[in-house]
């Protein structure tokens, strides 16, 4: 089955961001397809490379990146929600004249159309958090 996930919670704030990651791993392990993960609202913080959790805690951003590498996942961070919260790619930081960029490699910024596209193309959309 083809899944899409919507993640609405920040890592290290709510369990649901970690649950989304575990769910993604589980469905891939069972041979399902993950069409896209769409990070929206506070979920955009999952794409910040600047998160530096203590060593004895899960590094969610790094784990998403590893999963992305292993399976070629489409990890999309909503650009409007990300701008509000300060998650910027190099090009967005330049365009908005901000002093730094922090979008983690493996994630990309895109519009809400990617959520609509995921709804249209996946068999199941599962929302985490909010």
């Amino acid at each position: 089955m083809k899944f899409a996930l919507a993640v609405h919670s920040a890592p290290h704030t709510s369990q649901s961001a970690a649950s989304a990651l575990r769910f993604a791993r589980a469905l891939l392990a069972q041979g399902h397809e993950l069409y896209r993960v769409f990070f929206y609202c506070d979920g955009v913080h999952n794409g910040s490379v600047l998160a530096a959790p203590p060593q004895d805690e899960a590094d969610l951003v790094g784990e998403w990146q590893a999963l992305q590498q292993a399976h070629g996942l489409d990890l999309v961070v909503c650009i409007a929600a990300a701008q509000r919260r300060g998650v910027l790619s190099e090009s967005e930081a330049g365009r908005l004249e901000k002093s730094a960029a922090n979008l983690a490699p493996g994630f990309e910024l895109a519009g809400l159309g990617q959520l609509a596209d995921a709804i249209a193309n996946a068999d199941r959309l599962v929302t985490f958090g909010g």
Partner: protein
Amino acid sequence: MEGKSTLALCRQPPYGNALAREGLEAVLAAAAMDLVPDLLFLSDGVFQLLDNQSPAEIHQKSLQRNLQALPMFGIEQIFVCGRSLIERGISADQITIPGVEVRQVQDTGKLIAAYDTVLSF
């Protein structure tokens, strides 16, 4: 993208949580891409529908403009959970979206089960 029925749940109060605004923004963006969802306001989300809001007092942008845009984007099937209204002491004449009929539903589970995809905000 047609042929797939989609319902968006609006569960958050209008100004206590960014999900209320961003949920409506996602709904409008989906509608602009010809994926027109129906809406169900439930739990504290019913507060989004109260008229007479003065969010400027707390330095917030009003959600009214987003709600008023719904019919312009073709979103006309709008439901509100009757029990959520009763639990919060809100009467039917206090909730309104100009230009759209907001229909009360009693059995939300039955409503939700009929859709192909459910978004939750």
